[in-house]
């Protein structure tokens, strides 16, 4: 193994130009992917923290009366991790509405009956902040007989999510495009460096070297290039990020609310692993055909 690494190091040094092109290409690819991942990860976090231990409004049917409240609370509590359940009677709701409408509240006075339903405001525990979990709970609550409707800001989120998923698709598309480009260039530089060594490779074969012995350094080289490119790409992204977040925070205080964060360790490792895989795959594609006598 040590021997292979020595060979790889000498190969890389003797082919600095090609190697730096490959690494630069991979770095660029990773940079683009990284930008999307950064946006994606932050957007996810913002959506989730925006819901802050999600809440929902549960509207009750006319058959509800106040004596049923403890039983209802108990049922809802049994369904999920709720923090607090606040009862809002239709009278309270009407008062609130009057207050909200202020000057135009006269039309409410003209109403004979209170058209508003009794309602519960359900606030979930802090850790319950995934849209899916909230949705699940909403569906379950809706099945309780006296419950007429449940609302949990799904319209707003829904619209945001559709933009978000469009963005995600674009991210995937552009990332895979760049992945292909990087793969193409990596495969070709490895092919070139293999071609430049073809005499040497032939000699190795003649003195009894196996294909494995011959190509292993190329694979290690590919992997290292991938990892180096990945680290370089993320490094550049990080510099961008520092620059951007310091600049943004001064000029647009709104952004401070969101408090954008750099990619998590998990994401960074995944990205670097992908980029190592890219180097490996480039190698595989370009050397496959040389594995013949």
């Amino acid at each position, binding site marked *: 193994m040590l021997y292979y690494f020595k060979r790889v190091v*000498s190969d890389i040094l003797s082919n600095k130009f090609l190697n730096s092109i490959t690494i630069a290409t991979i770095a660029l690819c990773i940079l683009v992917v990284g930008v999307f991942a950064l946006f994606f990860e932050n957007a996810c976090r913002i959506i989730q923290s925006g819901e802050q231990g999600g809440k929902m409004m549960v509207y009750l049917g006319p058959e509800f009366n106040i004596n049923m409240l403890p039983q209802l609370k108990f049922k809802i509590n049994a369904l999920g991790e709720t923090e607090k359940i606040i009862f809002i009677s239709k009278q309270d709701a009407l008062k609130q509405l009057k207050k909200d409408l202020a000057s135009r509240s006269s039309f409410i006075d003209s109403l004979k009956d209170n058209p508003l339903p009794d309602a519960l405001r359900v606030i979930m525990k802090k850790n319950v902040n995934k849209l899916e979990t909230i949705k699940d709970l909403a569906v379950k609550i809706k099945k309780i007989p006296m419950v007429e409707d449940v609302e949990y800001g799904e319209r707003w989120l829904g619209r945001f999510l559709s933009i978000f998923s469009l963005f995600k698709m674009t991210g995937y598309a552009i990332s895979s495009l760049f992945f292909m480009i990087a793969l193409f260039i990596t495969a070709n530089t490895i092919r070139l460096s293999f071609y430049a060594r073809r005499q040497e490779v032939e*000699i190795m074969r*003649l*003195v*009894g*070297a*196996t294909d494995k012995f011959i190509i292993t350094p190329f694979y290690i080289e590919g992997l290292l290039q991938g990892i180096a490119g990945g680290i370089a790409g993320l490094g550049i992204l990080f510099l961008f990020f520092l620059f951007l977040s310091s600049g943004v925070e001064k000029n647009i205080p709104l952004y401070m609310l969101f408090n954008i964060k750099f990619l998590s360790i998990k994401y960074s490792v995944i990205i670097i692993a992908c980029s190592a895989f890219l180097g490996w795959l480039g190698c595989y594609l370009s050397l496959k055909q040389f594995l013949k006598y």
Partner: protein
Amino acid sequence: MSIIKDKNSIIRMFNVSKRFGKHYALKNITIDIQAGEFIFITGASGAGKSTLMKLLYLAERTSEGQILVDGMNLARISSSRVPYLRRKFGVIFQDFKLIPRKTVYENVALVLEAANEKPGIIKEKVLKILETTGMGKKINVLPPSLSGGEQQRVAVARALVGDPAIILADEPTCSLDSDSAQTILDFLLEYHSRGTTVLIATHNLQIISNTVNGRCISLVEGALTGAAKLL
């Protein structure tokens, strides 16, 4: 047609021909070489000496006929076994085939590295063989800055370092002055005395007359003439 394996034969060629296009480089060669023999393959330049050797270590494939090396039928050998066949041979190539980018030491060590030898043993063997071939002081030099004679010594060292069963020497003395040539020849004789089979291709009849116990195989335009003439 089948070839019966002779227990002591290390190389058997049966009706072997090699064509390049329409031109026959070798025609109907039948030879039987015993393990431990010392063989000269002679013939003018272009007679087919190098080609004959290339067929043995599968740098070229035979067009017709069959070759057995140490019981292996070369026509049937799978490509993954080819490296192992080649490790039976120590080849001194006519054009040396040194890797210009690698030092003398690395060139010689390559053979053992390819054979998965332990690093400690590699170092020991390589230094020893380079010392004996007189290249001990130039282990870190790149081949292009060596003279032809020095390159040949490195090529010899590389062929011998793995203690091969068979040594194929293609014009091993052509770049050397007669003293150095004799040194190399003495080397090959020493390996021969330890039981190694040695084949030397040469058009230099001088070195043959200096060597007592060799068998001579003569090629003329790819065909055998008066084969197995004992000197």
